[in-house]
């Protein structure tokens, strides 16, 4: 398989599923202002997903565009990490997911700017500024919830504990990360985990939160083996396109 295609698909799927999950908060966030903030972040993710999936479709050369890839694949064909497909849970869980993901995406996109593939480099240049803002937003909330009331601290710690195991998959090395690194397409994520960890540690410490131990490390998303949550997410996301193929506004 063309590694550029696989890479665009993998990261495009991360962004697409993250966008869909965040979008679930629209009209349900704790405050109107936060509603808009989460929707903005969701739209940033969707923007990155469109660029990556469009490019993946072109590279594949099978006539599939971004819509075909988003709306007409089954869960086994999605290559996103498990973290993004996990349910939103309470606000603290959503923030924990966003915090870990944004800290990872910011570093990934930053490095993608120097990709040997000009198109990927351009996508990285656009997305890294957005990720920096997502990280800023999530970190502010981690601090406020972690170092807030007894109840907000309890919930934020529970959220960090729940999501932590899923962060390992973000940095897992496999054949694709090796090939991508070899061809200069993208830096393998495990190489920047120490930097990610240092940043995450600093925020957790300031938020008076404890970083969980590294034990269980669920994975499989990169090979299309997902949690049951993804099927439900896709059913909702794809229902219109499947019921009315090619529907347009």
């Amino acid at each position, binding site marked *: 398989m063309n590694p550029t295609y696989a890479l665009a698909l993998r990261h495009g799927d991360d962004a697409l599923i993250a966008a869909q999950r965040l979008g679930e908060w629209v009209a349900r966030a704790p405050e109107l*202002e*936060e509603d808009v903030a989460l929707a*903005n972040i969701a739209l940033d993710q969707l923007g990155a997903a469109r660029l990556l999936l469009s490019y993946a479709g072109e590279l594949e050369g099978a006539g599939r565009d971004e819509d075909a890839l988003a709306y007409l694949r089954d869960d086994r064909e999605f290559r996103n990490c498990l973290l993004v497909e996990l349910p939103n849970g309470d606000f603290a869980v959503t923030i924990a997911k966003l915090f870990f993901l944004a800290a990872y995406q910011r570093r990934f996109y930053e490095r993608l700017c120097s990709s040997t593939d000009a198109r990927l480099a351009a996508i990285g240049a656009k997305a890294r500024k957005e990720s920096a803002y997502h990280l800023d937003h999530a970190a502010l909330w981690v601090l406020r919830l972690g170092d807030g009331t007894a109840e907000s601290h309890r919930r934020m710690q529970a959220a960090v504990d729940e999501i932590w195991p899923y962060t390992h998959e973000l940095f897992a090395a496999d054949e694709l990360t090796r090939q991508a690194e070899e061809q200069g397409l993208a830096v393998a994520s495990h190489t920047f985990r120490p930097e990610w960890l240092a940043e995450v540690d600093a925020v957790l410490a300031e938020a008076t939160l404890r970083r969980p131990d590294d034990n269980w490390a669920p994975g499989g998303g990169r090979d299309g083996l997902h949690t049951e949550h993804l099927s439900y997410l896709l059913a909702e996301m794809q229902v219109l396109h499947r019921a009315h193929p090619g529907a347009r506004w």
Partner: protein
Amino acid sequence: MSRQQWPLWEVFVRARRGLSHTHVGSLHAPDAELALRNARDLYTRRQEGVSIWVVPATAITASSPDEKDAFFDPAADKVYRHPTFYEVPEGVAHL
């Protein structure tokens, strides 16, 4: 339990360098840092600005509508306050 609402903040945006900050609206936020972020999301989505100020609405002292007459009417008949009592010399384009 009664639901406590976040405090109100007034938002000022500078559209371009050289212009002054202009009041654009208000929003709710738990503290100043988040007020600034919320302002960014609510009022500069379409590149409306290059700088944002947020001010707690409680920090603003406003004139009262009841005092309108005493405050503003006396200026109405004092035409000499307007710079209209001199001739602009010819050839002075920017005065």
